[in-house]
């Protein structure tokens, strides 16, 4: 499994889905910010992908959540999806 998403991909996803998206690593209860893209929004943070110590959070309204999740899955788990 790939364990990170490139800044290029984060920016592409942020633009395509109109969201703020950021990639994190978990240590204990802490999710530490690694990289992100898209404009900051005062919206709930939704954990859309979680596996082992990797997590992806999104803030956005009216975006296609299922499609975005699938895209993130594909980037973080390319072999399994292929």
């Amino acid at each position, binding site marked *: 499994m790939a364990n990170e998403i490139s800044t290029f991909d984060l920016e592409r996803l942020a633009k395509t889905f109109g969201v703020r998206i950021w990639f994190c690593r*978990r*240590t204990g209860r*802490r999710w*530490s*910010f690694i990289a*992100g893209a898209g404009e900051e929004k*005062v919206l709930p*943070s939704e954990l859309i992908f979680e596996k082992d110590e990797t997590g992806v*959070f999104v803030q956005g309204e009216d975006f296609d959540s299922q499609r975005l999740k699938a895209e993130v899955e594909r980037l973080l788990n390319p072999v399994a999806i292929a």
Partner: protein
Amino acid sequence: MHMVNDKLPASAWVNNVIKPEEFEKYLVNGKDFIDDDKIWQQINDSSEPDAEQVRAILDRSFNIKTMSPEDLATLMKVRDPQTWEEMYAMAARIKHKIYDNRIITFAPIYCGNFCVNNCLYCGFRADNSKEKRAKLSIQQVKDEAEAIAGRIGHKRVIAVYGEHPETDADFIAESIKAIYSVSVKTRKGHSEIRRVNINAAPFSVADLRKLHEVGIGTYQVFQETYHHETYKKLHPANTIKGNYPWRLYVHHRAYEAGIDDVAIGCLFGLYDWRFEVMGLLYHAIELESRFGVGPHTISFPRINPASGSPLATDPESNKYLVSDEDFKKLVTLLRLAVPYTGMIITARERQEIRDDVMFVGCTQTDASTNIGIGGYSKNTGKQEIDEQQFMLGDTRSLEELIRDLAKRGVITSFCTAGYRCGRTGDQIMDLLKKGQEKHFCKLNAILTYREWLDDFAGEETKKLGEAVIKKEIEEVKKKTPSIFSKKLYDLTMQYYERISNGERDLYI
């Protein structure tokens, strides 16, 4: 010889702690970023500003720009009481702009008072034979966490450790895990410590990784004094702490180890307070320029009675003791100089000072504080001079503090949301600098206040608290949808309802 379990004897351990290569790479031409002569020159060369100059500087602060050292030195020259009133008011406005109407609370847990150092002002110093030495076992750490989370209701702690092989990075990591493992049933739900910050010795990158891996909140290390000569005088050269740059660059090492919330501070009363405030600003600027992330918090404890330390109590032998008036000024200057940072005022200070200074920009404070080793479990309600690092000035319980804050319309927050969803490091710096974090602060304060009122408040406190929570919810409603989207408002109210029904730890 003091042997430590199966580890090296303390005297041998000391020789293996400092790794010069881990700070030398940051020195520029062999020098660190605190230039004593330059700082004094900046302080001495500035002249008293007129009101217009002051307002121009305050405007820049209000736009959440880190102040230049020259501007800070200029503000230090203000003498007009009316201008100081403007500065106090601006500091309070800036705090509100960034963190809203909330004060975060926490409790310190003293896990051990063994120390290999000999700092002249500290009750824990190795040569202080009057100090009773103790270290909590992991079970005792859990007992403390249970008392704090289950009886008092705190959700954050700062765990404090002396510099000693008994409380090395492995022990600290185990104790952090122990604290996080505790969950206590409460009146209506359950309570646990959700964020463990630590105040400990400066570690190597390898040791800091161990702390990072168990999910510490903030890593707090104070330089004590930024003035090189004073530092040398107070910290004997044959001790670990005698190495100024090893301590100064510990936050750099923390970033290297992946810890992105670091806290700085100094002990006021060791040297001229104006120099120390400049030192803290230079430290913040250094961290921002190297890592893009400034200090998560700044602390400004004043020296006070410590066992066997004349430096703390005798104005004849210590001309640097900070008066109450100057203390309020220095806190104000720090808020204006590093506007985005969290600022911590502790129960070291007397109640009347805390009540006054808290409102020139502080964001966090402690309550129901016990700084004895194992003090929360013992619950004697007494301070023990021979077991404590210093004496507390304000012994109010958390409930009393919450009530006093509620009477002033302030909401007490138990929020730990930020680092649970990646609002850390440069992400949170961005939010703070854009003034957006306060919106999350407001909502999470409401949710966590609800939890605490339902689980721990007495009748009178609950009544006062309900009024505060009603006012806060009204404000959110008024700002929906201009600031808070309908989706966010609805989610918050849904969480609020669920918490009222006994669910816990829901956050935005």
